[in-house]
């Protein structure tokens, strides 16, 4: 039994158990949304991280049609609002789940492992040193390029491109590590692994995602610098 069917034991229209879906299984009326049920459940999916993008697209389109406020123009205001609520959650859920990184961040946030902004995240000192040095070399390249002559500028653009390729390669490494962790997470769900196992996997994914955000910033820095390149 899903969380939402527990939260709303009776359909507002017919009084029967609504079944936990978007619409009552008895009378077919749209149901209020339990915010605790989450984005995966919204699409009728388990909380797995390897997700078939085409399947998600199909589910999204089908639900867009069914939940669209146009279908409720003649309904009571209450039902219209339910359709608006569900349609807006549908769009948020689709946007978050479509991207593997935001999908994983969402899963970790949902389980309290990752919090935006105010909760401090730990980063290993070697990583900080490395990121700091990479940022410094990027900054030096930038500064040299601002003051340099045209010929020098070309050479610096090349070194920037090399730096960009290095960061991109690092990003690739992190992403394949993340993909590996996704596989382990899904396998853990399949064998109904215990809390400890899952907590350990989530902590590791959190660590990978932290590293990833540093490297992504570096890649973005190089891309921006090359984009702003004078006389290219």
């Amino acid at each position, binding site marked *: 039994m899903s969380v939402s069917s527990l939260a709303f034991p009776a359909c507002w229209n017919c009084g029967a158990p609504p079944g936990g879906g978007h619409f009552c299984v008895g009378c077919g009326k749209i149901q209020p949304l339990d915010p605790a049920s989450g984005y995966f459940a919204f699409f009728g999916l388990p909380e797995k991280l390897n997700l078939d993008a085409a399947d998600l697209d199909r589910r999204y389109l089908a639900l867009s049609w069914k939940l669209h406020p146009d279908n409720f123009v003649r309904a009571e205001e209450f039902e219209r609002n339910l359709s608006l609520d569900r349609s807006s959650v549908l769009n948020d859920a689709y946007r978050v789940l479509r991207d593997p990184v935001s999908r994983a961040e969402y899963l970790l946030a949902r389980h309290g492992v*990752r919090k*935006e*902004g*105010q*909760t*401090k*995240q*730990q*980063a290993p*000192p070697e*990583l*900080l*040193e490395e*990121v*700091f040095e990479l*940022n*410094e070399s990027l*900054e030096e390249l930038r500064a040299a390029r601002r003051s340099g002559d045209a010929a020098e500028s070309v050479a610096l653009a090349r070194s920037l491109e090399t730096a960009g390729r290095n960061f991109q390669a690092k990003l690739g490494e992190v992403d394949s590590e993340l993909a590996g962790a996704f596989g382990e997470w899904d396998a853990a769900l399949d064998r109904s692994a215990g809390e400890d196992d899952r907590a350990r996997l989530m902590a590791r994914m959190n660590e990978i*995602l*932290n*590293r990833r*955000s*540093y490297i*992504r*910033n570096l890649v973005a820095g190089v891309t921006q610098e090359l984009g702003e390149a004078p006389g290219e």
Partner: protein
Amino acid sequence: MAYSEKVIDHYNNPRNVGSMPKEDPKVGTGMVGAPECGDVMRLQIRVNPETQVIEDAKFKTFGCGSAIASSSLATEWVKGRTVEDALSIKNTDIVRELALPPVKIHCSVLAEDAIKAAIGDWKRKQGAEESQASAAAAPAED
């Protein structure tokens, strides 16, 4: 969301940007990061071994305006204080001084962590020196 005037001032005219030699026994280096936004902050202090007063402080931060302002302010505040006194600087003081909005509070936390990390590094160096000195059975210095 607009930055406060004080944040903009520190961002445009950051105080004490730079570095000090990491190997110097009088220098403590704190390197901290906020992975969720990709910020890295390095704060260094130079301590007078006689008086325990922080005589100079430098920082370098790769991050948003609030992170830069928080670390710039932190270097201003630690200068002239004793090590123990500098440890009492709280992130909430930084939040108040810079009028940081709730979403930027973690930047001030980072600056507080950087101060603590720099002092911790300096203290470690002092401990290492003392044990070296006693191992060599050198006469105690004043």
